[in-house]
């Protein structure tokens, strides 16, 4: 679902977010270094849109999602949501906010309690946030199951009786149960077969329209991202390298990493021809990231300044920002 420029209202704003994980060592087990998983990123999520974060393993996209939810406590930064800084809230206050901030996880097998029936799983969600009085809960659960395309009888069954795609639908129902404003999808379709993936993506899109949801969609699969996003943010080694409208990013990618990423995807399309940029080497370690622009060690276009100075995110075209010395 796309939104017009006039309607753009910021729902969540991330500012200078840092997530450093300490590494202990030495005789006394002191902190000797950090894994700089997310290193000073800022971005906004607009009401009603789907913003995707893409990148490969170690880029920090999942960590960002978890930091917003405070599943791991961020090292520093602010997250503005509903006129509050999430990182300044107490645990109790945060509990209340969680009603509006839900998540769907990647692994449909691990994210549901195998000892609870579907009804218990969904009731629990409703009970914690007290969205619906006890008498109405069963009815609400039936409604929810209907929204995600599951029969009401599913209520009485256990997770292991369902397929991967069905379990993911239960996860979606659980997220929807508390009527959230923002849902973070952390690789929500990555573990599903292609044909099931398509079903779930269609479902997410229709639910977004129906309930006016906002999605933060974290994924490594650019095909999926193309289908579901309004805007796309590309991350590399803890930094944002490019953020733009979906069309802009896919048709005119500017950052060398984005271009390499897009060109690396094998596409079953006889019509599309691309020049392939194959990156050399492996992703460097986030414990000691390269100086200057983090991507310079693998960038086919790196120049001197790239080694010493980290580039800032600058506007390069309409609704398009890039962090690259060569582009700006």
């Amino acid at each position: 679902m796309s939104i017009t420029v006039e309607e753009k209202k910021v729902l969540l704003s991330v500012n200078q977010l840092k997530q450093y994980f300490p590494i202990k060592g030495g005789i006394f087990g002191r902190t000797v270094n950090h894994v700089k998983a997310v290193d000073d990123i800022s971005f906004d999520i607009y009401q009603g849109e789907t913003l995707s974060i893409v990148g490969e393993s170690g880029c920090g996209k999942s960590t960002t999602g978890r930091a917003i939810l405070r599943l791991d406590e961020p090292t520093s930064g602010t997250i503005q949501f509903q006129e509050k800084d999430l990182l300044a809230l107490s645990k109790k206050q945060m509990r209340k906010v969680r009603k509006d901030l839900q998540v769907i996880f990647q692994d449909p097998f691990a994210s549901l309690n195998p000892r609870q029936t579907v009804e218990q799983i969904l009731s629990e969600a409703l009970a914690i946030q007290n969205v619906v009085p006890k008498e109405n809960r069963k009815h609400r659960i039936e409604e929810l199951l209907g929204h995600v395309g599951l029969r009401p009888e599913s209520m009485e069954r256990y997770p292991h009786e369902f397929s991967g795609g069905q379990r993911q639908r239960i996860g979606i129902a659980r997220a929807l149960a508390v009527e959230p404003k923002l849902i973070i999808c952390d690789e929500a379709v990555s573990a599903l077969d292609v044909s099931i993936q398509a079903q779930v993506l269609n479902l997410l899109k229709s639910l977004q329209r129906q309930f006016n949801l906002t999605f933060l969609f974290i994924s490594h699969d650019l095909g999926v991202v193309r289908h579901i996003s309004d805007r796309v943010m590309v991350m590399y080694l803890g930094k944002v390298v490019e953020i733009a409208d979906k069309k802009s990013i896919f048709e005119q990618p500017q950052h060398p990493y984005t271009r390499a990423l897009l060109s690396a995807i094998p596409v079953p399309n006889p019509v599309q021809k691309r020049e392939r940029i194959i990156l050399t080497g492996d992703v460097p370690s986030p414990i000691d990231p390269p100086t200057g622009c983090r991507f310079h060690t693998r960038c086919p276009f790196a120049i001197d300044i790239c080694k010493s100075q980290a580039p800032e995110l600058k506007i390069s075209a309409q609704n398009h920002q890039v962090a690259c010395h060569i582009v700006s």
Partner: protein
Amino acid sequence: MKQLNENILEVKDLETYFFTEEGTSKAVNKVSFSLKKGETLGIVGESGSGKSITSLSLLRLIPSPPGKIVGGNIFFKGEDLLSKTDKQMRSIRGNEISMIFQEPMTSLNPVYSVGEQIAEVIRLHQNLGKKEAWQKAVDMLKLVGIPSPEKRAKQEPHELSGGMRQRVMIAMALACHPEVLIADEPTTALDVTIQAQILELIKNLQNELGTAVILITHDLGVVYESCDRVAVMYAGKIVEYTTAKELFENPKHPYTIGLLNSLPRLDMDQEELTTIPGTVPSPYNMPKGCSFAPRCAFAKKICEEMVPDLQHIDQMTQVSCWKHTVQWDREFVVHEKVGVE
């Protein structure tokens, strides 16, 4: 029974079943295909299609119990692998037919150096001494593009990244210059940019060494870029078997068409993805007749009653579908297929 032609591998009516408490699962249900010298064959399918079990069956690596190859033939250079002794199979594995697996993180032994693991297979099949085998192992690491191979050879798997471990696996598999390489989802667990590197590497080595490759994957994009011919599997059977080009330009089987349509396109926007309604049948409870019929928009009565065979519909394409047979138009559509959970 010897068969002399340019096919280095010929699989005929392969059947691999799993016997468990829940019943008998026909994981590979009369599968036939062939592989020419130097060719790349892709076997595509989703989970439960039987593609991995097929590849394990080729090298007779099926865990037994509960699995068992119950029928068919696997002709390798004219001789049936299913009639060979254990000893003969062992001299073929890693030597004439090699295999690499999906998870490079766990497919290497953590307590031995990577050099030792490669040298081991060289010593085993090529009767070289320790020193020579080690040197050859280092050469192989160089061949697969690992920088500072002498140093890396002494390292243990946990000291290498996922991409590098997969390169080590490839080095180990190709060390004895096998004629066939079976690659079971070799890039699924890797990042997209590393995936590109690995596929490129396999292609280059294939050209250099003349190896035929069977590439098993669920990623249609990978198939398109890397394979000459493709076999699409569904519920233990091959439903379509043709060239890669033909598969993407002119898919015939309803499942193939559905699969291609449900892929999100990188080059254009789609409002909604076409999906295949329903789910894969349980291998313990296969429908009578064509196993895809319950989900097929074109199904007619004959589809529900009789299993279609894999048949040539032209010189390069074989399909297992009643719709592509002569008697189709005479049949009536039984009922509409509706997407249901």
